[in-house]
């Protein structure tokens, strides 16, 4: 029986700015995100909306010196990540949370064999295991065991392969193996199937689903595809221009989307049942250098009301498990 | 959102039309250049050298000393308030001569680059675009031959064959210099020609001329300009090496290398005769190198 009640990660009102020529890029403007133990959460948004920035903030791997966090907190198991010491952060990154990147070719080091790379991950997160894994044999056994878990054929031979000898799907499986070695509690998968063929992407998604179920790990799945989020998640957050505009379970979100952006996005997705696609959403992303002072979607929104340009709307619960950040729905 | 008034719109745009993308982005380019403070130091040094070279006859304290002038009584004076860098053994003010020598140095650098860069770039473009054909092989092997001869020796041989004048020294340095640009542009052109926009231009039916000059060349310009800025310092050095050995600007017109060689005999007692010309050479190379770094930062295509 899985406990889905304890909150594992809670991002509150996160603001992140990047320093550039001409001022600050105010990318994140109050992001709220919550993940419970064992839960599968999807973060859906288009390019440039700030999803990768949010994830990098959790692990504190933003480019040093160039960013600034004026407000916000990221609570992991009750502790604020933004105030953690270096040692605590290291512990977080090596044992608690792991990230699976979008492009597996870039995520693997081409000059080392797979065995070395997985071995390194196990070594550096070894304190979480009961036995002492500083012996080569134990590391090797554990590597093979993990590679079997991600359905890689012939794991012993895989250990001595280089990454360029593997196909895209296999590389992504290796990355997933490396992630589950070190992550006990939370996986962050940044568009894990996008650079792969669609049949391989399907296999990878099913694999992730299985692993997450079996190990009771929570997962944040970042994607630009609502369809992928629908098949893989328990709750979806829709993000636009650095803010969360709507969040709900997939059933509710697809049956009753409320925010104009969500509605526009859903209408733009082509369906295999035909019927054509809408004309997209007029306009484009606002400038982060001089963002609108109110709701960031307001310049592209068809409906309007004076308060929309005054201050950004907060997330508001319109029904159970369904929150929206829009003034027009709060009446 | 739609513009209903077509003619007015076009006129308005014509008035605001920027001459080229570089000047359009001047402010942003300056920002990129000035991120590194040392680049600004370089720019200041270079500006100083250029201004003093242009206005030399009017700003130096002893303009007669750059011509035939002799005053043995004030010879061999160490640096003082009247002679900032001291005097040489025949009494000429070293400060004035050093400033004046910048002229010859800069003229040589400008002329050498003006003569060497266009053919070098042109050959590199053709060889790079026609990579893996016999034209490529011929051009690059000739380039290799010139690159394999040490520049000083090649320049010496040529300058020694011809009469020792500034002009011939420039010819000698030019011949040593063009192959570096060919090799630089060859590498860039052979990779740019595989870019999709070049393929697209080819498929649309553009002539080879257009592709070389309008598609490929503009994408090779950044490293060319950066290298030119850096090269000015090194050409000055090569010119000074030649004049050190007596080939180049002939006395009594001052040249940095000649002054160095004159003063070398009197080291270390009359140290100021060699040290200041040497420092001037160092300053030139340092200034152009630092400025060159800034130019590279400015022209690099980073995140927009």
């Amino acid at each position, binding site marked *: 029986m899985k406990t889905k009640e304890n909150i594992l990660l809670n991002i509150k009102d996160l603001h992140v700015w990047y320093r550039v020529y001409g001022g600050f890029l105010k990318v994140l403007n109050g992001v709220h995100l919550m993940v419970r133990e064992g839960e599968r959460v999807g973060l859906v948004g*288009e*390019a440039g909306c700030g999803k990768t920035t949010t994830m990098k903030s959790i692990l504190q791997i933003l480019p040093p010196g160039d960013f600034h966090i004026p407000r916000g907190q990221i609570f992991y198991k009750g502790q604020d990540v933004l105030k953690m010491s270096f040692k605590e952060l290291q512990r977080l990154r090596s044992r608690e949370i792991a990230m699976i990147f979008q492009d597996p070719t870039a995520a693997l080091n081409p000059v080392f064999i797979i065995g070395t790379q997985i071995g390194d991950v196990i070594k550096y997160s070894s304190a979480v295991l009961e036995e002492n894994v500083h012996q080569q044999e134990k590391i090797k056994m554990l590597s093979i065991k993990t590679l079997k878990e991600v359905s890689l054929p012939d794991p012993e031979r895989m250990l001595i392969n280089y990454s360029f000898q593997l*196909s*895209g*799907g*296999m590389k992504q499986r290796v990355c997933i193996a490396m992630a589950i070695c070190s992550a006990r509690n939370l996986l962050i998968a940044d568009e894990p199937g996008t650079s792969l*063929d*669609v*049949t*391989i*992407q*399907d*296999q990878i*998604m099913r694999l992730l689903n299985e692993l997450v179920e079996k190990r009771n790990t929570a997962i944040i799945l970042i994607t630009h*595809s*609502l*369809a*992928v989020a*629908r*098949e893989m998640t328990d709750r979806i957050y829709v993000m636009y221009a650095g803010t969360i505009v709507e969040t709900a379970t997939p059933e509710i979100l*697809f049956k009753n989307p409320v925010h104009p952006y969500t509605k526009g*996005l*859903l209408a*733009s*997705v*082509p*369906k*295999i*049942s*035909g*019927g054509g*696609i*809408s*004309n*997209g*959403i007029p306009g*484009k992303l606002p400038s982060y250098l001089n963002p609108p002072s109110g709701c960031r979607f307001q310049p592209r929104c068809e409906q309007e009301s004076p308060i929309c340009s005054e201050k950004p709307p907060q997330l508001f619960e319109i029904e159970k498990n369904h929150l929206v950040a829009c003034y027009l729905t709060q009446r | *959102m739609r513009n209903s008034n*077509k003619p007015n*719109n*076009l006129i308005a*745009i014509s008035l605001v*039309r920027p001459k080229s*993308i570089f000047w*359009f982005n001047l402010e942003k380019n300056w920002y990129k250049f000035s991120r590194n403070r040392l680049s600004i130091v370089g720019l200041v040094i270079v500006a100083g050298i250029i201004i003093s070279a242009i206005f030399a006859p009017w700003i130096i304290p002893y303009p007669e000393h750059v011509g035939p002038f002799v005053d043995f009584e004030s010879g061999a004076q160490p640096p003082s308030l009247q002679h900032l860098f001291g005097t040489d053994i025949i009494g000429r003010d070293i400060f004035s001569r050093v400033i004046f020598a910048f002229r010859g140095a800069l003229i040589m650098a400008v002329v050498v680059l003006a003569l060497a860069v266009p053919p070098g770039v042109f050959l590199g473009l053709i060889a790079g675009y026609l990579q893996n054909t016999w034209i490529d092989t011929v051009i690059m092997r000739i380039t290799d031959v010139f690159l394999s001869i040490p520049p000083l020796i090649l320049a010496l041989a040529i300058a020694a064959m011809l009469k020792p004048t500034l002009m011939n020294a420039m010819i000698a340095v030019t011949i040593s210099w063009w192959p570096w640009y060919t090799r630089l542009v060859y590498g860039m052109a052979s990779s740019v020609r595989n*870019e*999709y*926009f*070049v393929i*697209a*231009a080819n*498929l*649309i*039916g*553009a002539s080879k001329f257009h592709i070389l000059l*309008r*598609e490929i060349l*503009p*994408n090779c310009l950044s490293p060319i300009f950066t290298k030119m800025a850096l090269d000015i310092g090194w050409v000055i050095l090569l010119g000074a090496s030649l004049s050190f050995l007596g080939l180049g600007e002939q006395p009594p017109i001052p040249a940095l290398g000649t002054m160095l060689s004159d003063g070398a005999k009197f080291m270390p007692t009359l140290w100021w005769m060699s040290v200041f010309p040497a420092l001037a050479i160092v300053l030139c190379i340092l200034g152009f190198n630092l400025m060159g770094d800034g130019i590279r930062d400015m022209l690099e295509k980073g995140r*927009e």
Partner: protein
Amino acid sequence: MKQTTNNEILKIEKLKKYFHIGKDKKGPIYVRAVDGVDLNIKHGETLGLVGESGSGKSTIAYTVVGMYRPTSGQIMFKGKNTGMEASRRSLSSKKEIQIVFQDPGSSLNTRQTIEQILALPLRIHTQIPKRQFREKIVELLEKVELSPNYLYKSPSLIGGGEKQMVAIARAMAPNPSLIILDEPTSALDVSVQAKIINKLIDLQKEMNLSYLFITHDLSLMRNVANRIAIMYLGKICEVAESATFFEKPLHPYTQMLISSVPVITEEEKKLKPKKAISIGEIPSPVNIPLGCSFHLRCPYKMSICSKVDPEMIEFSPEHIVRCHLFAKLENKKQERSD
């Protein structure tokens, strides 16, 4: 016996494109990117070409437009032989066939302004005098819904969707008859994609164009193409009209592909074949399996599949499939007609 009918604008017959990549003891090694492909496109239609990596779809596009020379086979455009490299083609044939590439970032020269980029096809293919160029370019920009401000911008300053619009305007400029779109929206967001696709469909009607639309996105294909052809490792597996393709997919690879597509409505979910989930890896085009190239991953594999490569069979008019499962049908048809 089929002849080139007046209705067909492009006819590809037995097209092969092999790339020579080296040698081993047995002889030269080839990548058989395109291995015997027959395709045709009718006037005004959009033919969709679907496939995953290694399928050869981009190679076909590049060969048709003239980037590659075919190893063998014929490409007939409007009845004339066009199967050669672009440098050897006539100017009119270069004008008639245009291409829009996948990556908008690298298909536009960032060191030019958009005005210069769009002036090039006008200069080469039209008789418009130079002083009217600007007007014509503004007209082109308006067709793709970009304001005249874009004239002086460099491509590096505009977004991906707008860059792709400029690429489309460039393709439209010489007034072509056939445009090849190689995954034009794969690098773009779904809302931007929607805008561009609708614009492409409008322009097709307005200018009476034919499209060869290449993508790996099946749900996009369903809404864009009139007919769909699916490729695997250099050969065509199935060709059918859009609706038929999804309602009655015959080839096992087609079924596998459709079942892998992520969907957002229940209605679509019901459309997906249930038994054909994806297994196995796509083999490298250097090591194509003997017999039917798909047999290693096929759930309906028979003994003949590992030995003999199947022929293209006509299941019904406008629906052809290359699979041994349907060979009996062909035999039965032949028996009846004898």
